[in-house]
């Protein structure tokens, strides 16, 4: 018990501090308010829909806007907070007061990373909660599918967060890791296209053609595919209380955790001997 307390007490303490400090950031609050406005405002947008159109087109529109808003603003919050926590702590010199205490570098990183996850989860719950209520009020059915979507979106963000965090450990300002994080988010959402490249390659028999195919295959195996986590189409078109189809949730959770551990390991490798 004592060992657990000393090994995880420090990281948990750092995590709670990181959460309390991070949740007050103006930019993050701005993103959150904007996303809540979009989710809230989506109901009003439907009043512009042609009344002769498909019967549930307005509902589909709301769902589409809300799922997209959660994905975009959630990703922005994830990237921003993951990119800025460590550089901000170096800039304000708080890191000196923490690392000079009996807290190892891995414990410190773990604490920071957990704190970031708490911030992401709370923001997702706020955005998802509002969407959930909006749907429930409109349809009168528990939109359990949305809960699964929020759950999967978190694991999607976990991957982005881990790699952005790793980059931020090497950076002196949040700018580079923010750009890198956005790049990772966009790239990882386009991984599916590598499959197409792989399929189309090798048809001419030329060396370059085959090489491109092999590179695409290799990249597809290495890079995370965030499209795996999306059940947007089912949310928009399906019943709100349907179970998620076409996704293997335990497999996706494991998939996300593997990438998160890899990202965290990269962060530790960078930070282990970093001079602050």
């Amino acid at each position, binding site marked *: 018990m004592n060992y657990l*307390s*000393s090994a995880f*007490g*420090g990281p948990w*303490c*750092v995590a709670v*501090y990181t959460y*309390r*400090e991070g949740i*007050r950031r103006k930019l993050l609050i701005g993103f959150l308010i904007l996303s809540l406005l979009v989710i809230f405002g989506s109901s009003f947008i439907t009043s512009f829909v042609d009344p002769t159109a498909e019967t549930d087109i307005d509902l589909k529109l709301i769902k589409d806007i809300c799922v997209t808003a959660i994905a975009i603003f959630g990703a922005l919050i994830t990237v921003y907070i993951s990119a800025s926590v460590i550089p901000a702590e170096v800039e*304000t*010199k*708080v890191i*000196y*007061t*923490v*690392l*000079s*205490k*009996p*807290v*190892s570098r891995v414990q410190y990183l773990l604490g920071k990373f957990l704190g970031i996850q708490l911030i992401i989860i709370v923001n997702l719950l706020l955005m998802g909660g509002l969407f959930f209520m909006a749907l429930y009020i409109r349809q009168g059915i528990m939109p359990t599918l949305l809960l699964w979507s929020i759950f999967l979106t978190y694991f999607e963000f976990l991957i982005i967060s881990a790699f952005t965090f790793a980059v931020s450990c090497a950076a002196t300002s949040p700018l580079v890791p923010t750009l890198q994080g956005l790049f990772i988010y966009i790239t990882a959402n386009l991984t599916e296209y590598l499959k197409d490249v792989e399929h189309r390659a090798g048809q001419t028999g030329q060396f370059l053609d085959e090489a491109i195919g092999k590179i695409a295959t290799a990249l597809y195996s290495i890079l995370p595919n965030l499209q795996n986590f999306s059940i947007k189409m089912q949310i928009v078109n399906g019943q709100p209380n349907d179970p998620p189809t076409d996704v293997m949730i335990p497999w996706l959770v494991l998939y996300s955790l593997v990438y998160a551990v890899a990202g965290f390991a990269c962060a530790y490798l960078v930070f282990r*001997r970093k*001079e*602050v």
Partner: protein
Amino acid sequence: MTTVIRTTALNKIYEGSLRSQDVHALKDLNLEIREGEIFGYLGPNGSGKTTTIKMLLGLLFPTSGKIEILGSEAIESAKIKRNIGYLPEGAYYPDFLRGEEILSYYGRLYGLRGAELNKRVDETLELVGMQHARKRFLRGYSKGMRQRIGLAQALISDPKILILDEPTTGLDPIARKDIRDLLVELRKRGITLLISSHELLEVELISDRVAILFEGVMQTLGTMDELLTQRELSMTVEHMTDEIAASLEEKGIVVEDRTGIRALLRLPQKLSTYDAIELCQARKLNLLSISPRRETLEELFVRIVGSASESREVAQ
């Protein structure tokens, strides 16, 4: 007396990039800080003070050399860190926390919990005189109060060694005196203090020993009595005239200050009190006061740094 911090041939080279050269920030530093003393660590900006401190705390890594704290080379171990408190220069403490919450946070990082933590928070707030403001948010704190809370976070684990980087910079004279008194109180409690500062008067008033660093090289180290040995005579006289002043300056006597017929003179070391009295009698000066004058730490600092700077220029 036990040595609590020892560095042996400590070197730090910051590797340059493609455009800049390597910087040898610390050169073969040998330092011994003894238990229970206040050690003043001085030097101009960029002399390597903060680099040394950061290496002692494991925030920077030595290029070569050895560091021992409390007899152990494992300076990054929790066992050693538990005995060190550190106040960095100009650190930020979050505004949204109350004084006692900040201390609880840092106390938890030391592994303190429950009643033990509460007791330490109470004791530390009492020690730094911040009990009255414990429930207030930091945004309502003055600069002096923030510095006290900074000191409190460094003291929360009841450390054996306290490392302070510019503890009184930017504070008003009353806050400075309060901090100074607190540091003396901490020494009485057996805590070893390493203070890096530009406030030379503060350091002179409380330090047992000082070291002066210039461009990463230790220039001098010793007790105040060892270092500030140049004793001169200082005297105040009346009936000073321009002719007398000129004749005194020929004998190497410095007229430091002159207001009307009254003047403050500084006599070279070779002149005794009798010589001074004879000088006054011969020139019909009215002697108001005479006292031995020791070189100040500031004068020593300027002399040593100036001389090291000149030597470097000659070498170049």
